[in-house]
């Protein structure tokens, strides 16, 4: 019996995972190392690209998520005579689950794919190597600012998205269920605590960081021409979304225990 065969299979299965974990750790470590001296110009450019230019999309997500949650929850609230709790239920659902998850998935598509494609193109076109050729560290100059800017942009966008979602929940509750804004917002304000907002923002910050790290690692691993860029963008979206679901599963119970 060939005893090496199972080991070889194990290695074949485990190696890509170990390699990916190593790449993510390196991106994180090098970003942290360069935090004190990031290129301000590149940070600002990336914040505009990933944050400001994503505003319409995230506002749309906030609007639809808020209205949909209230319309859906409203049916059950009416059935069980719990209309007065709709503000709390809608707020809780958006803050703790729908908001971070939907925003994370949308941002994995928009910011993650864009970051990965840009870095992949910079790598395959030789610009990253070009920086090394003129004694500039491409990580410090180009990569770390993008990681930081995308994580910050996603967290900031989340704050705005939750505000918009709450607004549209109120509007939907009034027009679809006839619930006065005073009642809806009253239950929202009475029963939701600052820790719920904090938990939501922490969750989004973790998702934002994960999207930034995954997309950066995917972009830097790109090889070849247009196909390599396409593969990097696809990997950033697929693994970015997968990491959001995995992190959601892992950190929700921890945050809930800590903050509630």
């Amino acid at each position: 019996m060939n005893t090496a065969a199972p080991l070889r299979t194990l290695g074949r299965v485990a190696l890509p995972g170990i390699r990916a974990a190593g790449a993510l750790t390196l991106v994180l470590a090098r970003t942290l190392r360069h935090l004190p001296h990031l290129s301000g110009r590149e940070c600002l450019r990336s914040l505009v690209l990933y944050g400001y230019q994503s505003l319409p999309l995230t506002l749309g997500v906030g609007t639809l998520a808020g209205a949909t949650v209230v319309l859906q929850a409203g049916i059950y609230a009416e059935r069980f005579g719990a209309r007065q709790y709709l503000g709390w239920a809608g707020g809780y659902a958006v803050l703790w689950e729908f908001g971070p998850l939907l925003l994370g998935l949308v941002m994995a598509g928009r910011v993650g794919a864009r970051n990965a494609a840009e870095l992949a193109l910079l790598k395959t076109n030789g610009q990253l190597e070009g920086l090394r050729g003129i004694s500039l560290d491409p990580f410090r100059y180009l990569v770390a600012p993008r990681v930081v800017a995308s994580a910050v942009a996603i967290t900031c966008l989340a704050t705005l998205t939750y505000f918009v979602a709450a607004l549209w929940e109120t509007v939907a509750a009034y027009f679809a269920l006839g619930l006065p804004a005073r009642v809806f917002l009253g239950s929202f304000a009475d029963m939701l605590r600052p820790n719920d907002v904090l938990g939501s923002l922490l969750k989004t910050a973790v998702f934002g960081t994960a999207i930034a790290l995954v997309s950066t690692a995917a972009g830097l691993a790109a090889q070849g021409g247009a196909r390599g860029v396409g593969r990097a963008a696809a990997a950033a979206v697929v693994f970015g979304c997968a990491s959001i679901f995995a992190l959601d599963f892992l950190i929700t119970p921890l945050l809930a225990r800590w903050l509630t």
Partner: protein
Amino acid sequence: MELATSHLVVDFGPHRALDDVSLHFPLGSQLLLYGPSGGGKTTLLKALAGLVLPTRGQVLWNGRDRLTLSRGETRDAQAHMGMVFQTDALFDTLTVERNVALPLERKGLSAAAVEEKVANALARVGLKAAAQKRPEHLSGGMRKRAGIARALVMEPWVLFADDPLAGLDPETAAGISALLLEVSHGRTLIAAMPDPHPSLPLARTLRLTPMARDVDNRSTA
């Protein structure tokens, strides 16, 4: 600055790109590396510039193994090297002026000094009028000139040029060759190209092929 390689071997996975290469480049020397794709021209150029690490053997900068230098010494040595990339490696998001100023980013120079050095480099390659344009709005020859200006802005002792005439029409190629020859006075110039080009007659040539490497030292003048 003197460059040398000693029994240099560079592997990319199972593929051996360079095999036991020992060369010496005194200051002011000129070398053309030529040969078909896969022969290791660009790899040798990048190994000399410190962009590719040796698998075995040594790359020597002023007689010292590049791998034994501290981070600061490596940075200082690299500051004396300029590289003209095949793809020009310019950033389309920056103006030509900003692209050329990039190598000066961490030198702690005043804004006026940076401006002066960039203006000199651009004037030297004849691109002063295009300083505020973005590279995407330049022709192939102008992009190449911008790449040369960026390599020159640090006043390097060694100039590497990776396929500097690629994709250029004969007239533009002749212009870029003349420019390279002009700016290489007093500097070491190491260029890599698929074939020797009549407009860029360098003192020494080295043919690199995937199967065999034949050194042809026509002259060391």
